[in-house]
């Protein structure tokens, strides 16, 4: 396909250049320049800064070699945030995809009822993380609506500290992020399911395949690309989670819900340690790349086998 695209252009020849005026190049170069300035350059800058002890409060910074990177491995708070991040990533990926697929299959009907339900299920996706987190905070906080309801019903005597203890706070973050991500997974799986040709189901039915067999042999292989997209993108999003944590727990209690991305912002803007923050940034970038490309590669291989 690439050769097809390129070939006609060659036949144009240089004769027309004059007639084309200044052409599209200036606009393209503005776009590329902005992209370089606000994405490529910052990455390069981060790499360079990660080898220095740069701190905006100090007049000069000096080269410190790999000191920042060595510190990464001894920083208990970073290791703790890495642990928290991986817990959330694994929890959210499993729960969001399982529920997303369930919702998609449950709501995959054409009547008005099912269309209305699909519309409702997708709404968490259009709300900002800040709003989602405020809604959930009002539910989960000490004197929040969940505890009020539980007490009104006489189910608990004392308020449960849903976001006040490290374990429950971690679970709360997992649940809230899953809630948002389920909406996304449902969209992807719904669209995947609807691209499965009905004839395949008919053929399977004619062959006497039961519901489970139809799911395993028709639905599941056909939605494999949807699985790749939903899983990979869910992972990338969860790795850069910030606003939900900021509103719901603020990283607490006792730093138990600080993700790597959250900790990075802390080090950069609260501690002002730009050098070390840059090393964390490069670490996070590497982590995201490895996880994203790793999963995509694994899932794509599965697609290819089918």
């Amino acid at each position, binding site marked *: 396909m690439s050769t097809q695209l390129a070939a006609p252009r060659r036949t144009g020849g240089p004769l027309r250049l004059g007639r084309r005026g200044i052409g599209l190049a200036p606009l393209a170069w503005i776009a590329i320049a902005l992209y370089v300035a*606000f994405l490529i350059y910052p990455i390069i800058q981060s790499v360079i800064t990660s080898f220095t002890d740069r701190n905006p409060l100090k007049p000069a910074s000096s080269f410190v070699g790999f000191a920042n990177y060595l510190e990464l491995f001894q920083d208990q708070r970073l290791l703790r945030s890495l642990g928290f991040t991986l817990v959330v990533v694994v929890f959210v990926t499993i729960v969001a995809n399982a529920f997303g697929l369930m919702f998609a299959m449950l709501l995959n009907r054409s009547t008005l009822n099912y269309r209305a339900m699909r519309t409702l299920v997708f709404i968490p996706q259009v709300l900002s993380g800040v709003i989602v987190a405020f809604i959930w905070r009002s539910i989960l906080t000490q004197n929040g609506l969940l505890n009020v309801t539980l007490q009104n019903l006489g189910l608990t005597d004392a308020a449960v500290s849903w976001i006040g203890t490290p374990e429950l706070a971690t679970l709360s973050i997992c649940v809230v992020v899953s809630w948002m991500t389920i909406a996304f997974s449902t969209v992807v799986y*719904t669209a995947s399911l609807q691209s499965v040709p009905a004839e395949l189901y008919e053929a399977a039915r004619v062959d006497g395949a039961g519901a489970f067999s139809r799911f395993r042999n028709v639905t599941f292989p056909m939605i494999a690309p949807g699985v790749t997209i939903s899983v990979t993108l869910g992972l990338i999003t969860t790795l850069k989670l910030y606003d939900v944590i900021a509103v719901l727990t603020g990283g607490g209690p006792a730093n138990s819900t600080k993700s790597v991305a959250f900790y990075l912002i802390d080090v950069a803007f609260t501690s002002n340690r730009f050098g070390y923050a840059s090393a964390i940034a490069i670490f996070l970038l590497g982590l995201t790349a490895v996880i994203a490309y790793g999963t995509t590669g694994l899932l794509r291989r599965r697609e290819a086998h089918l």
Partner: protein
Amino acid sequence: MSTETTVASAASAASAASAASTDPSASEATVIARTFEDPAPTRGVRAVGARGSARRRARNGGRLLAAWLVTLAFVLPIYLALSSAFKSQEQILANPLGLPAPFTLDNIVTALDRPDHLVQAGLLNSVVVTLLTLVLLIPLASAVSFWISERTPVLRGILLAVFALGLMVPPQVVLQPIVSLLHAVGLQNSYPGLILSNIGGGYMSFAVFVYVGFLRTVPREVIEAARVDGAGELRIWWTIVMPLVRPATATVGIFLGLWVWNDFLNPLFILGPLQGQTITTGIYQSLGTYSTDYGQLFGIMFLAAIIPVVGYLVTQREFIHGLMSGASKG
């Protein structure tokens, strides 16, 4: 970061993936969008079969009931927020799940009467930032995409690989250098600084991948014909390509609009706490004190959320279409 970024990176990675591996075809995407709207054609067979048996009808009724129960349980937090916006603090605490009866607009009125005009100012700032970002980013992204798709395969491959990077980079990674850069050019704590970094950052990658993917479906003959007629590249792009890629523009506009609107990290750190605020950061910085005044909290959140939600309901079809046009075949 949040839902909007979920979708952001979602759709972007999706389109990146498709751009890298297969040709997403426009007709395919349209078919998917149409089936999402009305999947009747594919389900028709089953519907006819179901009419026959009473047992099946009962089973369908059971399925419908189960589906509604699961759906309602899932959206319970949204119902809670929506109904609480129209209830008094006492009503909310006495029965959080109760209907808003008697119905009150006090929360909404109080939210709009705040002396700091949090809601009005935040909404206005968000509208300005979102619109300016889109108005500048869409032509730039579409132009660079058309320009890229006219390059040689090698150059195109390199450029697309560079743009693909932006789909994956967590915004936190580049935030501090961006803030320093804006400081160096005197745009720190300013809306132009925020808008520029919106245009140049990861959103550009998403837009480029949607456009490049879509441009593959545009017949070359159309563009070649215009070229033979002597039209310049700029003119071909504006009068021929832009109208042809309108569905891609809708996708980019809807998704980027949503993500820029809901963005939290960039406005928070680029605008800074002392400057004006978008609705998202404004809520964050002002509502901490309202943690127990639920009426006020939900009143403000209702006003903040109503624009994206109504926008979603109106553009629902394009929303799904857009998500899948990049992802149709992974």
